């Protein structure tokens, strides 16, 4: 399910794309082997539509990008981290319902 509103970030462009972004960025740390990551994927897709232009929704594959998860002490996926002006506003671990993510996003948008 490709969604062109969702951007892919990597270790290489994380600082530029996420930390230095003028808009808040929600990063979904995921991997192909993670069931709950796939479970929340449709919710992430919907949020990317709903918050288009207000919050950037990004995904990072932790298999291909080990450095960034390490920086943020991520040892569980899915983990969602909401960044604004380079700092962490909220971190959500595990698969949660849409409302929980919306509540976090409402703090910045």
């Amino acid at each position: 399910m490709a969604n062109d509103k969702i951007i892919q970030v990597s270790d290489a462009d994380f600082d530029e794309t996420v930390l230095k972004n003028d808009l808040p960025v929600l990063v979904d740390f995921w991997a192909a082997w993670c069931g709950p990551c796939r479970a929340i994927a449709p919710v992430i897709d919907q949020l990317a539509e709903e918050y288009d232009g207000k919050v950037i929704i990004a995904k990072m594959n932790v298999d291909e990008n080990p450095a960034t998860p390490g920086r943020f002490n991520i040892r569980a996926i899915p983990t969602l981290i909401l960044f604004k002006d380079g700092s962490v506003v909220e971190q959500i671990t595990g698969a949660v319902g849409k409302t929980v993510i919306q509540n976090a996003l409402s703090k910045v948008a």
Partner: protein
Amino acid sequence: MIHDVVIIGGGPAGLAAAIYAGRAKLKGFVLEKMSPGGQVLVTDMVENYPGFMEPISGFELVEKFTAHAKRFGMPIETGEVERIEPVGDQFSLILTDERTITARSVIVATGATHRKLGVKGEQELTGRGVSYCATCDGPFFRDQVVAVVGGGDSAVQEAIFLTKFAKKVYVIHRRDELRAIKILQERAFANDKIDFVWDSIVEEIEGKDQVQAVKILNKKSGKQSRLEVDGVFIFIGIQPITDFVKGLVDTDERGFIKTDQWMRTSFKGIYAAGDCRQKPLLQIVTAVAEGATAAYAVEHDLA
């Protein structure tokens, strides 16, 4: 629009109910807060579901269930029910996004979620070494030392799974024997990466930004000890997701919904199936049977 039935939850029970309701030409849909699958999604391998002699991943099995439900015309929609209000002989389902759905009957198939230990450090270190999902988080513990808490099927199966990554897995169990089914016990005892810590409970999980150790109390000797680990995987059972029907239908003291053998709850028009229901065996095979029965009961009772 008034639906014949709304099925809350898209795990095996809900999807089986959808297959039977769809074939009975009942009007309705499945309401799932994430994507279909439930706890099966995080199950590494399923090897006790009849017909699947070769172990199948939980994810693949769920994909088959979902496709099967859709084939008989039951849509699966995203949404989470906040509460159910009976209105005459119908029900208003109020969702967390404030939508309202009207249905003549409701099948509660919301399943269950992992139980927490309730010890110091658990909440703070969740996602930082404390985990409830080995298939999700196991790969973060390559060549590290982890503890598994529990002695049932899930605990033992996940301990075995974790030996693919971790160099050592301690199984901490409060009794002196496992509750897990024999075939899993045999595999665990034969695995030299797994060590058992018997008669013991975890009193605290230590660590600053990451899990560093667990404090253990041996209940027989009264001796306390400290075990250095990088991760703690907790599998001490489940708790039903039934808060949203509390007060509406009868439950047992742990919140599991009581039903008759037609899956009818104490409230006429509300049915329950799967792990949210009070029953002796929590398995995919029982969940699907109950889902089918609940859909049949709805058809019968609406006629």
